[in-house]
Protein backbone atom coordinates (compact mmCIF):
# COMPACT_ATOMS: atom_id res chain seq x y z
CA UNK A 1 0.00 0.00 0.00
CA UNK A 2 2.76 2.45 0.87
CA UNK A 3 6.16 2.84 -0.71
CA UNK A 4 7.70 1.50 2.47
CA UNK A 5 5.83 -1.77 2.30
CA UNK A 6 7.46 -2.58 -1.03
CA UNK A 7 10.86 -2.82 0.54
CA UNK A 8 9.92 -3.87 4.08
CA UNK A 9 7.85 -6.94 4.72
CA UNK A 10 4.52 -6.23 6.42
CA UNK A 11 4.44 -6.19 10.24
CA UNK A 12 3.35 -9.43 11.87
CA UNK A 13 0.05 -9.62 13.75
CA UNK A 14 2.07 -9.71 16.96
CA UNK A 15 3.87 -6.48 16.07
CA UNK A 16 0.61 -4.78 15.14
CA UNK A 17 -0.95 -5.83 18.45
CA UNK A 18 2.02 -4.43 20.35
CA UNK A 19 1.82 -1.17 18.44
CA UNK A 20 -1.89 -0.85 19.22
CA UNK A 21 -1.21 -1.47 22.92
CA UNK A 22 1.37 1.33 22.88
CA UNK A 23 -0.99 3.67 21.03
CA UNK A 24 -3.72 3.17 23.62
CA UNK A 25 -1.25 3.64 26.46
CA UNK A 26 0.02 6.86 24.91
CA UNK A 27 -3.50 8.12 24.32
CA UNK A 28 -4.47 7.43 27.92
CA UNK A 29 -1.73 9.88 28.73
CA UNK A 30 -0.10 8.63 31.92
CA UNK A 31 3.19 7.22 30.64
CA UNK A 32 6.02 7.12 33.18
CA UNK A 33 9.57 8.01 32.12
CA UNK A 34 10.49 4.32 32.17
CA UNK A 35 7.53 3.44 29.97
CA UNK A 36 8.44 6.22 27.58
CA UNK A 37 11.92 4.69 27.21
CA UNK A 38 10.48 1.22 26.77
CA UNK A 39 8.29 2.56 23.99
CA UNK A 40 11.28 4.12 22.21
CA UNK A 41 13.19 0.86 22.51
CA UNK A 42 10.22 -1.03 21.08
CA UNK A 43 10.05 1.31 18.08
CA UNK A 44 13.79 0.97 17.40
CA UNK A 45 13.69 -2.82 17.31
CA UNK A 46 13.11 -3.25 13.57
CA UNK A 47 11.82 -1.52 10.43
CA UNK A 48 8.61 -3.56 10.78
CA UNK A 49 8.04 -2.07 14.22
CA UNK A 50 8.44 1.37 12.72
CA UNK A 51 6.14 0.55 9.83
CA UNK A 52 3.48 -0.76 12.22
CA UNK A 53 3.71 2.46 14.20
CA UNK A 54 3.61 4.60 11.10
CA UNK A 55 0.51 2.79 9.85
CA UNK A 56 -1.21 3.32 13.19
CA UNK A 57 -0.76 7.04 12.75
CA UNK A 58 -3.18 6.79 9.86
CA UNK A 59 -5.41 4.30 11.66
CA UNK A 60 -5.87 6.60 14.66
CA UNK A 61 -6.65 9.79 12.84
CA UNK A 62 -9.62 11.76 14.12
CA UNK A 63 -12.53 12.08 11.72
CA UNK A 64 -12.15 15.79 11.14
CA UNK A 65 -14.13 15.64 7.88
CA UNK A 66 -17.26 14.98 9.89
CA UNK A 67 -16.45 17.53 12.57
CA UNK A 68 -19.75 19.26 11.82
CA UNK A 69 -21.58 16.17 13.04
CA UNK A 70 -21.80 14.93 16.59
CA UNK A 71 -21.16 11.24 17.16
CA UNK A 72 -24.88 10.73 17.70
CA UNK A 73 -25.70 12.35 14.36
CA UNK A 74 -23.03 10.28 12.63
CA UNK A 75 -24.45 7.08 14.11
CA UNK A 76 -27.98 8.10 13.13
CA UNK A 77 -26.89 8.79 9.57
CA UNK A 78 -25.14 5.45 9.34
CA UNK A 79 -28.10 3.60 10.79
CA UNK A 80 -30.54 5.35 8.47
CA UNK A 81 -28.31 4.45 5.53
CA UNK A 82 -28.04 0.80 6.58
CA UNK A 83 -31.81 0.60 6.88
CA UNK A 84 -32.18 2.03 3.40
CA UNK A 85 -29.62 -0.43 2.12
CA UNK A 86 -31.52 -3.37 3.65
CA UNK A 87 -34.73 -2.15 2.01
CA UNK A 88 -32.94 -1.85 -1.29
CA UNK A 89 -31.50 -5.33 -1.10
CA UNK A 90 -34.93 -6.67 -0.25
CA UNK A 91 -36.51 -4.97 -3.24
CA UNK A 92 -33.64 -5.90 -5.51
CA UNK A 93 -35.31 -8.97 -6.99
CA UNK A 94 -38.56 -7.16 -7.69
CA UNK A 95 -36.80 -4.25 -9.31
CA UNK A 96 -34.47 -6.34 -11.41
CA UNK A 97 -37.44 -7.88 -13.18
CA UNK A 98 -38.41 -4.49 -14.58
CA UNK A 99 -35.07 -4.24 -16.31
CA UNK A 100 -33.71 -0.87 -17.40
CA UNK A 101 -34.92 0.92 -14.30
CA UNK A 102 -32.07 2.82 -12.73
CA UNK A 103 -31.87 1.99 -9.06
CA UNK A 104 -29.64 4.93 -8.39
CA UNK A 105 -32.57 7.15 -9.15
CA UNK A 106 -33.38 8.90 -5.95
CA UNK A 107 -29.89 9.14 -4.58
CA UNK A 108 -27.59 10.89 -6.92
CA UNK A 109 -24.55 13.07 -6.54
CA UNK A 110 -26.30 15.43 -8.87
CA UNK A 111 -28.65 16.31 -6.03
CA UNK A 112 -30.36 19.54 -6.91
CA UNK A 113 -33.23 19.80 -4.44
CA UNK A 114 -35.64 17.37 -2.87
CA UNK A 115 -38.66 18.45 -4.88
CA UNK A 116 -37.30 18.02 -8.37
CA UNK A 117 -34.37 15.67 -8.17
CA UNK A 118 -36.36 12.46 -8.20
CA UNK A 119 -38.36 12.80 -11.36
CA UNK A 120 -35.66 14.71 -13.17
CA UNK A 121 -33.14 11.96 -12.58
CA UNK A 122 -35.71 9.32 -13.34
CA UNK A 123 -36.24 10.88 -16.71
CA UNK A 124 -32.53 11.29 -17.17
CA UNK A 125 -31.94 7.59 -16.66
CA UNK A 126 -34.38 6.62 -19.40
CA UNK A 127 -33.96 9.49 -21.80
CA UNK A 128 -32.11 9.80 -25.06
CA UNK A 129 -31.30 13.50 -24.66
CA UNK A 130 -30.80 15.32 -21.39
CA UNK A 131 -29.70 18.79 -20.43
CA UNK A 132 -27.97 19.92 -17.25
CA UNK A 133 -28.82 23.04 -15.29
CA UNK A 134 -28.28 26.06 -17.53
CA UNK A 135 -27.86 23.96 -20.67
CA UNK A 136 -29.93 23.98 -23.86
CA UNK A 137 -29.69 21.60 -26.81
CA UNK A 138 -31.15 21.89 -30.28
CA UNK A 139 -31.95 18.87 -32.44
CA UNK A 140 -33.27 18.45 -35.97
CA UNK A 141 -35.93 15.74 -35.83
CA UNK A 142 -36.32 13.02 -38.45
CA UNK A 143 -39.69 14.49 -39.47
CA UNK A 144 -38.09 17.86 -40.23
CA UNK A 145 -39.21 19.55 -37.01
CA UNK A 146 -36.77 21.74 -35.12
CA UNK A 147 -36.50 20.94 -31.44
CA UNK A 148 -34.94 22.95 -28.65
CA UNK A 149 -34.60 21.34 -25.23
CA UNK A 150 -34.39 23.74 -22.30
CA UNK A 151 -32.44 23.50 -19.03
CA UNK A 152 -32.75 20.40 -16.79
CA UNK A 153 -34.81 18.37 -19.20
CA UNK A 154 -34.97 14.78 -20.31
CA UNK A 155 -36.45 13.62 -23.60
CA UNK A 156 -36.94 10.20 -25.18
CA UNK A 157 -36.98 10.00 -28.96
CA UNK A 158 -38.47 7.11 -30.90
CA UNK A 159 -38.69 7.37 -34.66
CA UNK A 160 -38.59 3.63 -35.20
CA UNK A 161 -42.23 2.63 -35.01
CA UNK A 162 -44.48 5.64 -35.10
CA UNK A 163 -42.77 8.95 -34.57
CA UNK A 164 -43.09 9.79 -30.93
CA UNK A 165 -41.22 11.87 -28.39
CA UNK A 166 -41.55 11.50 -24.67
CA UNK A 167 -40.90 14.44 -22.41
CA UNK A 168 -39.86 12.84 -19.13
CA UNK A 169 -39.13 16.14 -17.51
CA UNK A 170 -38.44 19.77 -18.30
CA UNK A 171 -39.30 21.95 -21.25
CA UNK A 172 -39.07 21.84 -25.02
CA UNK A 173 -39.91 24.02 -27.97
CA UNK A 174 -40.72 22.74 -31.45
CA UNK A 175 -41.01 24.77 -34.61
CA UNK A 176 -42.01 23.57 -38.08
CA UNK A 177 -43.35 20.35 -36.60
CA UNK A 178 -43.48 17.33 -38.88
CA UNK A 179 -46.38 15.98 -36.84
CA UNK A 180 -44.49 13.77 -34.37
CA UNK A 181 -46.56 13.13 -31.26
CA UNK A 182 -45.28 14.00 -27.84
CA UNK A 183 -46.18 12.14 -24.70
CA UNK A 184 -45.79 13.78 -21.30
CA UNK A 185 -46.92 11.35 -18.61
CA UNK A 186 -50.60 10.61 -19.30
CA UNK A 187 -50.98 13.52 -21.66
CA UNK A 188 -50.56 13.16 -25.40
CA UNK A 189 -50.00 16.03 -27.82
CA UNK A 190 -50.47 15.73 -31.60
CA UNK A 191 -49.32 18.86 -33.43
CA UNK A 192 -50.51 19.82 -36.90
CA UNK A 193 -47.78 19.84 -39.54
CA UNK A 194 -45.90 23.12 -39.36
CA UNK A 195 -47.02 23.96 -35.82
CA UNK A 196 -44.81 25.89 -33.40
CA UNK A 197 -45.27 25.48 -29.66
CA UNK A 198 -43.62 25.00 -26.28
CA UNK A 199 -44.33 22.20 -23.82
CA UNK A 200 -43.31 22.19 -20.19
CA UNK A 201 -43.52 19.34 -17.71
CA UNK A 202 -42.53 20.05 -14.13
CA UNK A 203 -43.26 18.22 -10.90
CA UNK A 204 -46.67 19.76 -10.34
CA UNK A 205 -47.92 20.79 -13.78
CA UNK A 206 -47.83 20.26 -17.52
CA UNK A 207 -48.35 23.19 -19.89
CA UNK A 208 -48.54 23.67 -23.64
CA UNK A 209 -48.45 27.04 -25.36
CA UNK A 210 -49.06 27.25 -29.10
CA UNK A 211 -47.45 29.97 -31.21
CA UNK A 212 -48.51 29.00 -34.73
CA UNK A 213 -50.78 26.27 -36.09
CA UNK A 214 -52.64 24.05 -33.66
CA UNK A 215 -52.05 21.08 -31.39
CA UNK A 216 -54.58 18.42 -30.56
CA UNK A 217 -54.20 17.37 -26.93
CA UNK A 218 -55.48 14.34 -25.08
CA UNK A 219 -55.54 15.45 -21.47
CA UNK A 220 -57.32 13.51 -18.73
CA UNK A 221 -58.82 11.30 -21.45
CA UNK A 222 -60.46 14.25 -23.22
CA UNK A 223 -59.62 15.81 -26.58
CA UNK A 224 -58.73 19.47 -26.43
CA UNK A 225 -57.72 21.54 -29.43
CA UNK A 226 -55.29 24.33 -28.63
CA UNK A 227 -54.90 26.97 -31.37
CA UNK A 228 -52.26 29.62 -31.96
CA UNK A 229 -52.13 32.19 -29.18
CA UNK A 230 -53.64 29.80 -26.63
CA UNK A 231 -52.28 27.77 -23.79
CA UNK A 232 -53.48 24.83 -21.77
CA UNK A 233 -52.30 23.79 -18.35
CA UNK A 234 -52.89 20.62 -16.38
CA UNK A 235 -52.38 21.10 -12.64
CA UNK A 236 -53.94 19.63 -9.48
CA UNK A 237 -56.18 17.36 -11.59
CA UNK A 238 -57.64 20.38 -13.32
CA UNK A 239 -57.39 21.48 -16.93
CA UNK A 240 -57.03 25.24 -17.33
CA UNK A 241 -57.26 27.15 -20.61
CA UNK A 242 -55.98 30.63 -21.27
CA UNK A 243 -54.79 33.01 -23.91
CA UNK A 244 -51.04 33.25 -24.31
CA UNK A 245 -50.92 37.00 -24.40
CA UNK A 246 -47.33 37.42 -23.31
CA UNK A 247 -44.03 36.05 -24.44
CA UNK A 248 -43.25 35.13 -20.83
CA UNK A 249 -42.98 31.39 -21.43
CA UNK A 250 -41.34 31.74 -24.82
CA UNK A 251 -38.37 34.03 -24.28
CA UNK A 252 -36.12 31.20 -23.08
CA UNK A 253 -35.86 30.10 -26.71
CA UNK A 254 -33.89 33.28 -27.35
CA UNK A 255 -31.80 32.87 -24.20
CA UNK A 256 -33.75 35.21 -21.95
CA UNK A 257 -35.75 34.82 -18.79
CA UNK A 258 -38.54 37.37 -18.62
CA UNK A 259 -40.70 38.92 -15.95
CA UNK A 260 -43.81 41.10 -16.24
CA UNK A 261 -44.86 42.29 -12.82
CA UNK A 262 -43.85 38.79 -11.74
CA UNK A 263 -43.61 38.07 -7.99
CA UNK A 264 -40.01 37.45 -6.92
CA UNK A 265 -40.73 33.98 -5.53
CA UNK A 266 -42.06 32.84 -8.90
CA UNK A 267 -39.17 34.42 -10.74
CA UNK A 268 -36.63 32.79 -8.39
CA UNK A 269 -38.30 29.40 -8.89
CA UNK A 270 -37.82 29.85 -12.65
CA UNK A 271 -34.24 31.03 -12.25
CA UNK A 272 -33.41 28.08 -10.01
CA UNK A 273 -34.03 25.72 -12.93
CA UNK A 274 -31.07 27.26 -14.73
CA UNK A 275 -28.67 26.96 -11.84
CA UNK A 276 -27.07 23.99 -10.05
CA UNK A 277 -27.63 23.83 -6.31
CA UNK A 278 -30.10 25.57 -4.07
CA UNK A 279 -31.67 28.96 -4.78
CA UNK A 280 -34.64 30.43 -2.94
CA UNK A 281 -35.96 33.61 -1.35
CA UNK A 282 -37.54 34.22 2.03
CA UNK A 283 -41.27 34.87 2.35
CA UNK A 284 -41.07 38.63 3.12
CA UNK A 285 -39.37 39.43 -0.21
CA UNK A 286 -41.25 36.81 -2.24
CA UNK A 287 -44.15 39.18 -2.96
CA UNK A 288 -41.99 41.96 -4.43
CA UNK A 289 -42.64 42.21 -8.18
CA UNK A 290 -40.29 42.86 -11.07
CA UNK A 291 -40.31 43.29 -14.84
CA UNK A 292 -37.58 42.86 -17.41
CA UNK A 293 -35.60 40.42 -19.52
CA UNK A 294 -32.38 38.84 -18.33
CA UNK A 295 -29.88 36.74 -20.31
CA UNK A 296 -29.90 33.29 -18.72
CA UNK A 297 -26.31 32.55 -19.65
CA UNK A 298 -25.08 34.04 -16.38
CA UNK A 299 -27.34 33.47 -13.39
CA UNK A 300 -24.85 35.06 -10.96
CA UNK A 301 -25.20 38.30 -12.89
CA UNK A 302 -29.00 38.09 -12.71
CA UNK A 303 -28.80 37.67 -8.94
CA UNK A 304 -26.58 40.76 -8.70
CA UNK A 305 -29.08 42.64 -10.87
CA UNK A 306 -31.96 41.65 -8.61
CA UNK A 307 -30.11 43.09 -5.63
CA UNK A 308 -29.82 46.40 -7.45
CA UNK A 309 -33.43 46.73 -8.62
CA UNK A 310 -35.10 45.30 -5.50
CA UNK A 311 -34.50 45.84 -1.76
CA UNK A 312 -32.92 42.39 -1.39
CA UNK A 313 -29.47 40.97 -0.77
CA UNK A 314 -27.87 37.56 -1.27
CA UNK A 315 -27.18 35.24 1.60
CA UNK A 316 -24.51 32.89 0.24
CA UNK A 317 -23.12 29.82 1.95
CA UNK A 318 -21.46 28.59 -1.19
CA UNK A 319 -21.93 28.80 -4.92
CA UNK A 320 -24.52 26.06 -4.53
CA UNK A 321 -26.55 27.67 -1.78
CA UNK A 322 -28.03 31.13 -2.26
CA UNK A 323 -31.00 32.73 -0.54
CA UNK A 324 -32.45 36.19 -1.23
CA UNK A 325 -33.36 38.03 1.96
CA UNK A 326 -34.50 41.59 2.80
CA UNK A 327 -31.65 44.07 2.27
Amino acid at each position, binding site marked *: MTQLSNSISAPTNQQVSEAIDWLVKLET*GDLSAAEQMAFERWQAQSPQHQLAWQRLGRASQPFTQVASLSSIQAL*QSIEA*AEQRLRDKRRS*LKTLASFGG*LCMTLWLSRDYTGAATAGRYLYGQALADITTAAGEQKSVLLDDGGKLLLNTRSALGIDFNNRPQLELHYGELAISNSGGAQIRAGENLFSPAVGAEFTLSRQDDFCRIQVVTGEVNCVVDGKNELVAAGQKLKRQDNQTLRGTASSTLNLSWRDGFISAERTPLDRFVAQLARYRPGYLTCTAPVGKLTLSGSFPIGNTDLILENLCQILPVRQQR*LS*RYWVRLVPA
Partner: protein
Amino acid sequence: MQLAQRTLVHNLYSSHQGWLRDWLRKRLGCSETAADLTQDTFIRLLLKDNAPQLESPRAYLSTIAKGLMINHWRRQALEQAYLDLLAAQPEPLLPSLEERQLVVEALLQLAEILDGLTPRDQQIFLLARLDGLKYQEIADQLNITVNSVQKAMVRATHKVYQILYDTAVE
Protein backbone atom coordinates in the same frame (compact mmCIF):
# COMPACT_ATOMS: atom_id res chain seq x y z
CA MET B 1 3.29 -6.94 -8.30
CA GLN B 2 4.45 -10.01 -10.18
CA LEU B 3 4.47 -10.03 -13.93
CA ALA B 4 2.71 -13.39 -14.00
CA GLN B 5 -0.10 -11.96 -11.92
CA ARG B 6 -0.46 -8.92 -14.10
CA THR B 7 -0.79 -11.21 -17.11
CA LEU B 8 -3.38 -13.26 -15.27
CA VAL B 9 -5.48 -10.17 -14.52
CA HIS B 10 -5.06 -8.98 -18.08
CA ASN B 11 -6.34 -12.31 -19.41
CA LEU B 12 -9.26 -12.23 -17.01
CA TYR B 13 -10.05 -8.74 -18.20
CA SER B 14 -10.14 -9.56 -21.87
CA SER B 15 -12.19 -12.75 -21.43
CA HIS B 16 -14.70 -11.59 -18.85
CA GLN B 17 -15.02 -7.81 -18.66
CA GLY B 18 -17.92 -7.71 -21.14
CA TRP B 19 -19.75 -10.40 -19.23
CA LEU B 20 -19.13 -8.66 -15.91
CA ARG B 21 -20.38 -5.32 -17.22
CA ASP B 22 -23.61 -6.95 -18.39
CA TRP B 23 -23.94 -8.75 -15.08
CA LEU B 24 -23.60 -5.46 -13.21
CA ARG B 25 -25.83 -3.52 -15.58
CA LYS B 26 -28.66 -6.01 -15.07
CA ARG B 27 -28.44 -5.54 -11.32
CA LEU B 28 -27.80 -1.80 -11.27
CA GLY B 29 -30.00 -0.90 -14.23
CA CYS B 30 -27.50 1.78 -15.05
CA SER B 31 -24.82 1.23 -17.66
CA GLU B 32 -22.49 4.04 -16.57
CA THR B 33 -22.26 2.80 -13.01
CA ALA B 34 -21.87 -0.74 -14.33
CA ALA B 35 -18.88 0.35 -16.44
CA ASP B 36 -17.32 2.14 -13.44
CA LEU B 37 -17.72 -0.83 -11.13
CA THR B 38 -16.34 -3.20 -13.77
CA GLN B 39 -13.15 -1.15 -13.86
CA ASP B 40 -13.05 -1.03 -10.06
CA THR B 41 -13.37 -4.81 -9.87
CA PHE B 42 -10.25 -5.36 -11.97
CA ILE B 43 -8.36 -2.62 -10.14
CA ARG B 44 -9.14 -4.42 -6.87
CA LEU B 45 -7.74 -7.57 -8.41
CA LEU B 46 -4.55 -5.79 -9.48
CA LEU B 47 -4.01 -4.38 -5.99
CA LYS B 48 -4.16 -7.74 -4.32
CA ASP B 49 -0.89 -9.03 -2.95
CA ASN B 50 -1.42 -12.42 -4.53
CA ALA B 51 -4.25 -13.28 -6.86
CA PRO B 52 -5.68 -16.71 -6.13
CA GLN B 53 -5.73 -19.53 -8.66
CA LEU B 54 -9.07 -19.30 -10.32
CA GLU B 55 -11.17 -22.34 -11.06
CA SER B 56 -14.38 -20.39 -11.65
CA PRO B 57 -13.31 -16.86 -12.55
CA ARG B 58 -16.82 -15.53 -13.08
CA ALA B 59 -17.99 -16.56 -9.64
CA TYR B 60 -14.89 -14.93 -8.19
CA LEU B 61 -15.29 -11.70 -10.20
CA SER B 62 -18.96 -11.43 -9.33
CA THR B 63 -18.17 -11.82 -5.63
CA ILE B 64 -15.83 -8.82 -5.76
CA ALA B 65 -18.32 -6.91 -7.92
CA LYS B 66 -21.15 -7.63 -5.50
CA GLY B 67 -19.14 -6.11 -2.66
CA LEU B 68 -18.45 -3.01 -4.75
CA MET B 69 -22.10 -2.74 -5.73
CA ILE B 70 -23.23 -2.82 -2.12
CA ASN B 71 -20.57 -0.24 -1.28
CA HIS B 72 -21.87 1.92 -4.09
CA TRP B 73 -25.41 1.78 -2.69
CA ARG B 74 -24.14 2.33 0.82
CA ARG B 75 -22.38 5.49 -0.31
CA GLN B 76 -25.58 6.77 -1.90
CA ALA B 77 -27.68 5.85 1.12
CA LEU B 78 -25.20 7.64 3.38
CA GLU B 79 -25.28 10.70 1.20
CA GLN B 80 -29.07 10.73 1.39
CA ALA B 81 -29.04 10.26 5.16
CA TYR B 82 -26.55 13.10 5.51
CA LEU B 83 -28.64 15.43 3.33
CA ASP B 84 -31.74 14.49 5.34
CA LEU B 85 -29.86 15.37 8.49
CA LEU B 86 -28.79 18.73 7.07
CA ALA B 87 -32.33 19.47 5.96
CA ALA B 88 -33.64 18.75 9.46
CA GLN B 89 -31.40 21.37 11.09
CA PRO B 90 -33.22 24.45 12.43
CA GLU B 91 -30.86 26.63 10.35
CA PRO B 92 -30.37 24.53 7.23
CA LEU B 93 -26.86 24.65 5.83
CA LEU B 94 -25.83 23.21 2.54
CA PRO B 95 -22.09 22.60 2.32
CA SER B 96 -20.47 22.61 -1.10
CA LEU B 97 -20.48 19.46 -3.21
CA GLU B 98 -16.81 18.88 -2.39
CA GLU B 99 -17.37 19.17 1.36
CA ARG B 100 -20.33 16.85 1.11
CA GLN B 101 -18.26 14.25 -0.72
CA LEU B 102 -15.61 14.39 2.01
CA VAL B 103 -18.21 13.87 4.70
CA VAL B 104 -19.81 11.00 2.81
CA GLU B 105 -16.44 9.29 2.28
CA ALA B 106 -15.69 9.68 5.99
CA LEU B 107 -19.11 8.31 6.93
CA LEU B 108 -18.54 5.39 4.58
CA GLN B 109 -15.29 4.57 6.29
CA LEU B 110 -16.91 4.98 9.71
CA ALA B 111 -19.72 2.62 8.74
CA GLU B 112 -17.17 0.01 7.72
CA ILE B 113 -15.27 0.39 11.00
CA LEU B 114 -18.37 0.30 13.20
CA ASP B 115 -19.76 -2.73 11.40
CA GLY B 116 -19.19 -5.71 13.70
CA LEU B 117 -18.24 -3.69 16.80
CA THR B 118 -20.56 -3.90 19.81
CA PRO B 119 -22.78 -0.84 20.38
CA ARG B 120 -20.70 0.06 23.44
CA ASP B 121 -17.44 -0.15 21.47
CA GLN B 122 -18.98 1.92 18.67
CA GLN B 123 -19.96 4.59 21.15
CA ILE B 124 -16.51 4.72 22.72
CA PHE B 125 -14.76 4.83 19.36
CA LEU B 126 -16.96 7.69 18.14
CA LEU B 127 -16.53 9.68 21.34
CA ALA B 128 -12.75 9.37 20.96
CA ARG B 129 -12.24 9.81 17.24
CA LEU B 130 -15.16 12.01 16.29
CA ASP B 131 -16.00 14.06 19.37
CA GLY B 132 -12.33 14.14 20.37
CA LEU B 133 -12.85 13.23 24.04
CA LYS B 134 -9.96 11.97 26.18
CA TYR B 135 -10.16 8.43 27.59
CA GLN B 136 -10.81 9.78 31.09
CA GLU B 137 -13.64 11.98 29.83
CA ILE B 138 -15.22 9.04 28.00
CA ALA B 139 -14.97 6.91 31.16
CA ASP B 140 -16.65 9.68 33.18
CA GLN B 141 -19.39 10.22 30.65
CA LEU B 142 -20.27 6.53 30.29
CA ASN B 143 -19.61 5.77 33.95
CA ILE B 144 -17.08 3.02 33.20
CA THR B 145 -13.38 2.53 34.04
CA VAL B 146 -10.57 3.94 31.92
CA ASN B 147 -9.42 0.34 31.54
CA SER B 148 -12.70 -0.53 29.76
CA VAL B 149 -12.20 2.43 27.42
CA GLN B 150 -8.68 1.22 26.63
CA LYS B 151 -9.89 -2.29 25.83
CA ALA B 152 -12.60 -0.95 23.54
CA MET B 153 -10.08 1.25 21.74
CA VAL B 154 -7.74 -1.70 21.25
CA ARG B 155 -10.56 -3.68 19.59
CA ALA B 156 -11.67 -0.75 17.45
CA THR B 157 -8.12 0.09 16.34
CA HIS B 158 -7.53 -3.52 15.29
CA LYS B 159 -10.61 -3.18 13.12
CA VAL B 160 -9.38 0.06 11.55
CA TYR B 161 -5.96 -1.45 10.86
CA GLN B 162 -7.54 -4.47 9.23
CA ILE B 163 -9.67 -2.27 6.95
CA LEU B 164 -6.78 -0.05 5.95
CA TYR B 165 -4.01 -2.59 5.50
CA ASP B 166 -5.28 -6.12 5.43
CA THR B 167 -5.58 -6.93 1.75
CA ALA B 168 -5.78 -10.67 2.24
CA VAL B 169 -9.45 -10.69 3.26
CA GLU B 170 -12.03 -9.47 0.83
